């Protein structure tokens, strides 16, 4: 009887999707954005195979992805305001809504019930039910400034989830960080923190959900908020880190990610410089700098924190460098190909996947030997997102 039951279940999967020919989990699967064609690939990180392509996601340049707690559903945030829920196992779109005119990213609440999307147009954050994608709350980023395209609405960046059914995000035009607390229900309690700094372009939260750090385009420095304080305030860190030095043209804004922490330090891209800034993760003082090959875009710690992998803006975006954390030395310089846009580690870090946009390839490296272990075709790949992100705060 048990055997027959399993057989029937297997049969259902066989008809649902070609690749799910047998019962399987999703813990080793991932989603790769194909930015130019509005499609995503479902990939298997154990076998290094492409399982399926899902099409019809609209403009997904600068797209990012979060996962449901069961790691079955991927929520894709598109540039065109599209929010698409994908069934990773069945490789199909479950639902898609176009919730704004221009979007930049999103987050999922710790209980898995709410999706938040940060929008440039109209500036603000919208919150959706993860099952139905119905609108739960709308938070316009009204600040009363004059230099916003929407009159008084700011573009929103650096949206992250933190424990307690809360989201934190920052207003590019206003230099404010807001906390939206949904612990009391669907009507959020808002806390607004001012004086974050000029033109915050992206932000990260540490893996414990405590320290929120925004990079500033308009100032030499970063902004730090300790979210564990009863009355959180923004304080400048590394103010004047580039003092007296000419800033280079910034051909691509760096991205700040929660993966940046390793061995008691944060490794952050310096804007307009060929440097990583090393910041003590308790005192938030600068404890070092590492000269690198170009202007860093992503600086990502391998999950064990032993290495930092860095990619770069034009004209150095064919290169990836690996830094050994204890010695802070560059131990390897790789040339995966033109336009390396993103990197994603296997959950425990034994391998890393790179998207090489202008070669239409995904390349997989062993992080111990630096040998290339696999190569897969993909159409103009950008972001790579593995399902294990479901269980990390603030990604």
């Amino acid at each position, binding site marked *: 009887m048990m055997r027959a039951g399993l057989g029937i279940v297997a049969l259902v999967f066989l008809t649902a999707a070609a690749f799910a020919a047998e019962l399987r989990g999703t813990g080793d699967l991932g989603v790769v954005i194909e930015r*130019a064609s509005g499609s995503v690939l479902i990939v298997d990180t154990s076998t290094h195979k492409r399982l399926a392509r899902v099409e019809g996601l609209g403009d997904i*340049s*600068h797209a990012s992805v979060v996962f449901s707690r069961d790691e079955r559903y991927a929520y894709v945030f598109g*540039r065109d305001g599209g929010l698409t829920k994908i069934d990773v196992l069945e490789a199909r779109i479950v639902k898609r809504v176009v919730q704004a005119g221009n979007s930049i990213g999103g987050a999922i609440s710790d209980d898995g019930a709410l999706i938040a999307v940060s929008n440039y147009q109209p500036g603000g954050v919208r919150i959706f039910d993860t099952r139905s994608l119905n609108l739960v709350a709308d938070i316009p980023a009204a600040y009363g400034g004059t230099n916003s395209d929407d009159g008084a609405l700011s573009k929103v960046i650096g949206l992250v989830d933190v424990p307690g059914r809360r989201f934190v995000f920052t207003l*590019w035009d206003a230099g404010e960080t807001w906390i939206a607390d949904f612990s009391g229900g669907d009507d959020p309690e808002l806390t607004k923190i001012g004086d974050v700094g000029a033109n915050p372009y992206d932000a990260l939260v540490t893996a414990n959900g405590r320290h929120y750090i925004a990079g500033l385009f308009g100032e030499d420095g970063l902004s730090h908020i300790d979210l564990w304080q009863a009355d959180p305030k923004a304080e400048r860190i590394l103010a004047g880190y580039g003092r007296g030095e000419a800033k280079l043209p910034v*051909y691509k804004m760096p991205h700040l990610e929660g993966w940046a922490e390793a061995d008691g330090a944060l490794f952050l891209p310096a804007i307009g410089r060929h440097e990583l800034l090393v910041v003590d993760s308790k005192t938030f003082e600068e404890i070092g700098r590492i000269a690198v090959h170009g202007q860093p875009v992503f600086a990502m710690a391998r999950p064990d924190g032993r290495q930092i992998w860095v990619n770069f803006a034009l004209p150095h975006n064919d290169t990836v460098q690996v830094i050994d954390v204890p010695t802070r030395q560059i131990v390897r310089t790789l040339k995966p190909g033109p336009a390396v846009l993103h990197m994603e580690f296997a959950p425990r870090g034994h391998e890393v996947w790179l998207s090489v946009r202008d070669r239409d390839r995904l390349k997989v490296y062993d992080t111990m030997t630096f040998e290339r272990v696999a190569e897969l075709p993909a159409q103009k790949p950008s972001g790579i997102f593995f399902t294990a992100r479901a269980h990390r705060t603030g990604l």
Partner: protein
Amino acid sequence: MLRLLPGILVIVALFGGNARAGGDLSAAEIARLSNMVRQDCGSCHGLTLKGGLGRPLTVDQLAGMDRETVRDIILFGIDDTPMPGWLGLLSEPEADWIARALKTGAIQ
């Protein structure tokens, strides 16, 4: 008259313009520049050029700016904004081609 003008500009850009700027650039170079505009300018201005952190670069949005101005913004950037000058990565004829192509919607 005003209505006719944009149409004439498009024709000039497509035919007269190609003889100058397009004539200097090979098909491969044009493909490379189009890819760069969509993919790299697109980091801030959107893959479809409808805007992002940077303003939209659609034909409508650029209508009030002449080609030389667009070219100079590409080459030299805009002070106190995130728009960098691309001189060093792009030559003047390349920036000129991009300016013209943006204004006429000719990015491939």
